[in-house]
C-alpha cells in the first residue's frame, strides 16, 4: 500500500515537472552512452586485433625496404599498398635455416565490376595456393571443404566485408572470376580484399594488353611481399625480433613487418581515440553528476516545504525516503537504458565508418558477448543513481517537518 502511494507521488511529480526530468534523463543517457561507446570500441578493436593477428598467420612479413609502414596501414584500413620486389628474394629468405616456410603475395589495385551495379576499387591480393599457409585455413566454416579443395585458376576467395557470395562472378582487367569461397571476418583491412591465385594474376596481367580497357603492368618475376613462418625455437629457430633483425641485415633490399608491431600500431591508434572519447565522457560524467546533484539539491530544497507538508499530513519518513529513492532510480534507470540502447545501436550501425575513419579494425562480437558489457554498464548506472539519490533522500526524510516547511519560505 505504502509502495503504491510512493509510486503515485513519483508519477504525479514527474508528470508535473516533466521538463526537468527529461533533462536529467538525457544527461544520464549521454554520460552512459559515451562510456558504453568507448567500451564497445575498445572491446571490438581488441577482438579484431586478436583475430586478425591469428589470421595473418605469419611470424614475419618481408616487403621492399622502407615500405613496412605502408603494409601496416593497408592491413589496418584495407587501402591497397602497391609495391613490388624481385621474386628471387623469396628464395633468399627460404635459405635461412631458421625459416620454416615462405609464401609470396602480390598486391594489385583494380576496379571491379561486381556483376550488378556497383564499381569500386578492389584490393586484389595474389597468393600461391601451393605454398600458402595463411589464407585457406580461414575460409568461412561452411566452406571448410574448400580447405582441401584445389582452388581453380579462375576462382578467387573474397573477404567477408565485400558482401559477396560463393558463386558470384567478378571481372578484373577483362577477365571473369568466380568467387570460390568467403573468408571468415576479422574486422581488419583484409576483409576487404579479394584473394586470387598468383599465377592467374600474372596471366591476367599478360592478357590485359588485349582484353582490358586498362593495361596491368606486372612482370611475372615480381612479388609484393613474402610471408614467413619461423621454426620453433626448440627446433633451432630464433625469436621473431632476432630473426627480423638477421633478415634485414643480410638482405638490405627488404624491411620486415612483425605482427607485434602491427598490434602496437593498432593499440596506438586505439589509445588516442579512446583517450579522446574517455576524457570527453569523463567531462560529461562530471557535468552530469554536477547537474544531477544540483537539480536534486534544488528540487529537494524546493520540495523541502512540500516534504514537510506531507510529513505534517501524516507521511512517514519511510514514505518520503522511498519516494525520493524511486525518483532517482527511475531517472538513472531510464537514462542509462536509453544511453545504452542508443550508443550500442549507433556504434554497431556505423561500425565500418568509425573503423575506417579511426584507422582501427573492428570485429563485431556476437550480441551474446555484448550482454554482459551492457548489464555491467546498466548496473553501474543504477548504482550511481542510487548513491546520488541516497543523500538527498536521507536528508529530506530526517528533517523536522516544521524546519522543512519554514525552509521553503
Amino acid at each position, binding site marked *: 500500500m505504502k509502495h503504491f*502511494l510512493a509510486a503515485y*507521488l513519483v508519477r*504525479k*511529480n514527474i*508528470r*508535473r*515537472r516533466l521538463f526537468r526530468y527529461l533533462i536529467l534523463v538525457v544527461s544520464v543517457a549521454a554520460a552512459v552512452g559515451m562510456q558504453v561507446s568507448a567500451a564497445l570500441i575498445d572491446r571490438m578493436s581488441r577482438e579484431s586485433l586478436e583475430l586478425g593477428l591469428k589470421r595473418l598467420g605469419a611470424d614475419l612479413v618481408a616487403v621492399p625496404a622502407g615500405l613496412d609502414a605502408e603494409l601496416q596501414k593497408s592491413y589496418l584500413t584495407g587501402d591497397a599498398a602497391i609495391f613490388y620486389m624481385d621474386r628471387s628474394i623469396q628464395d633468399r629468405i627460404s635459405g635461412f635455416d631458421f625459416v620454416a616456410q615462405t609464401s609470396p603475395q602480390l598486391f594489385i589495385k583494380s576496379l571491379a565490376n561486381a556483376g550488378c551495379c556497383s564499381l569500386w576499387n578492389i584490393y586484389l591480393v595474389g597468393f600461391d595456393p601451393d605454398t600458402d599457409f595463411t589464407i585457406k585455413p580461414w575460409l568461412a566454416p561452411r566452406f571448410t571443404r574448400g580447405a582441401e579443395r584445389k582452388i581453380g585458376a579462375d576462382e578467387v576467395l573474397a573477404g567477408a566485408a565485400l558482401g559477396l557470395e560463393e558463386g558470384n562472378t567478378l571481372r578484373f582487367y577483362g577477365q571473369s572470376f568466380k568467387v570460390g569461397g568467403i573468408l571468415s571476418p576479422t574486422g581488419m583491412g583484409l576483409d576487404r580484399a579479394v584473394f586470387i591465385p598468383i599465377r592467374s594474376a600474372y596471366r591476367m596481367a599478360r592478357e590485359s594488353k588485349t582484353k582490358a580497357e586498362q593495361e596491368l603492368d606486372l612482370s611475372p618475376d615480381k612479388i609484393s611481399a613474402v610471408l614467413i613462418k619461423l621454426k620453433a625455437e626448440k627446433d633451432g629457430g630464433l625469436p621473431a625480433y632476432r630473426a627480423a633483425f638477421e633478415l634485414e641485415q643480410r638482405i638490405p633490399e627488404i624491411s620486415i613487418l612483425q605482427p607485434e608491431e602491427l598490434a602496437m600500431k593498432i593499440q596506438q591508434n586505439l589509445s588516442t581515440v579512446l583517450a579522446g572519447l574517455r576524457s570527453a565522457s569523463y567531462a560529461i560524467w562530471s557535468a552530469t553528476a554536477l547537474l544531477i546533484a544540483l537539480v536534486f539539491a534544488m528540487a529537494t530544497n524546493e520540495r523541502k*516545504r*512540500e516534504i*514537510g*507538508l*506531507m*510529513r*505534517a*499530513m*501524516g*507521511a*512517514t*519518513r519511510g514514505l518520503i525516503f522511498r519516494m525520493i529513492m524511486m525518483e532517482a532510480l527511475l531517472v538513472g534507470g531510464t537514462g542509462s537504458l536509453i544511453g545504452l540502447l542508443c550508443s550500442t545501436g549507433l556504434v554497431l550501425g556505423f561500425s565500418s565508418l568509425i573503423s575506417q575513419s579511426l584507422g582501427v579494425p573492428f570485429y563485431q562480437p556476437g550480441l551474446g558477448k555484448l550482454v554482459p558489457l551492457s548489464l555491467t554498464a546498466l548496473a553501474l548506472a543504477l548504482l550511481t543513481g542510487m548513491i546520488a539519490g541516497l543523500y538527498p533522500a536521507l536528508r529530506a526524510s530526517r528533517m*523536522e*517537518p*516544521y*524546519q522543512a*516547511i519554514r525552509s521553503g*519560505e
Partner: protein
Amino acid sequence: MIKVQKVSKVYGAGQNQIHAIGDLSFEIYKGEFVMLFGPSGSGKTTILNIIAGLTRPSRGKVFLDQQNIFEMSDRQLTGFRARNIGLVFQSQSMLTHLNSLDNVRLGLRLAGKKDDPDLAKKALIRMGLEDRILAYANELSAGQQRRVSIARALVKRPKILLCDEPTGDLDPDTEKSIMEMLKKAHQAGTTILMVTHNSSLDSYATRVLQKNLVR
C-alpha cells in the same frame, strides 16, 4: 483534550538565543473553538507546531488525549498526527504537483483512510470550490488555496483542527467565508485551536486565550 504544560522553546545557542516561548501552560477541552491571540512574532506559530508534533519543545510536555506526544517514536507520532490532527498553515500549503482533488485525496490516504474521490469532491464542494476541483495551485487564488487546505485537513475528520492564521492576508469577504466554514466544522463536532493576531474574529470563538507567549 490538549494539555500544554510548561512548554518553552529556545532557538539558537549562547548569545544568539531567541526565546520563542517561555513556560507556557494551557488546556483545551473537547468541542471548544479556542482562539489564541498575540502579536506577530510572539511564538503563536511555534506553539501550534509543537502541539502538532512538528517540532520539539526545549522543555515541557504536551498531552493529547492523555498521551505525552513527545514520548512517542517518530513513527507513532506521525501515525497519531495523521489520524487525529488536521493542520491549516499560514503559508501556501497546497502540494503544487497535485491538483485540488488529489491534494484532498492525499490527505485521506496519508491518514490511513480509504481513498474516496467522492468524499474528497464533497469536501471541496463544501468549501465552495465545485468549479476548481481539477485546478493546480498556480491556477488558484490565495483564498482558494487556503480553502483547499482546509478541505484537505477536514476530510479525514480529525479530532482537532489546528489553524495558523487561516485568514491572514486575505480580503474581508474571503476572510468571512473561511471563518463561516470553520464555524460549520466546529458545529459538526470538530475541536478547533486557531491562532491569529486579528482580535476582531473573537465572535467565532467559544473561548479566547490572550497571552504574551514570550517570557
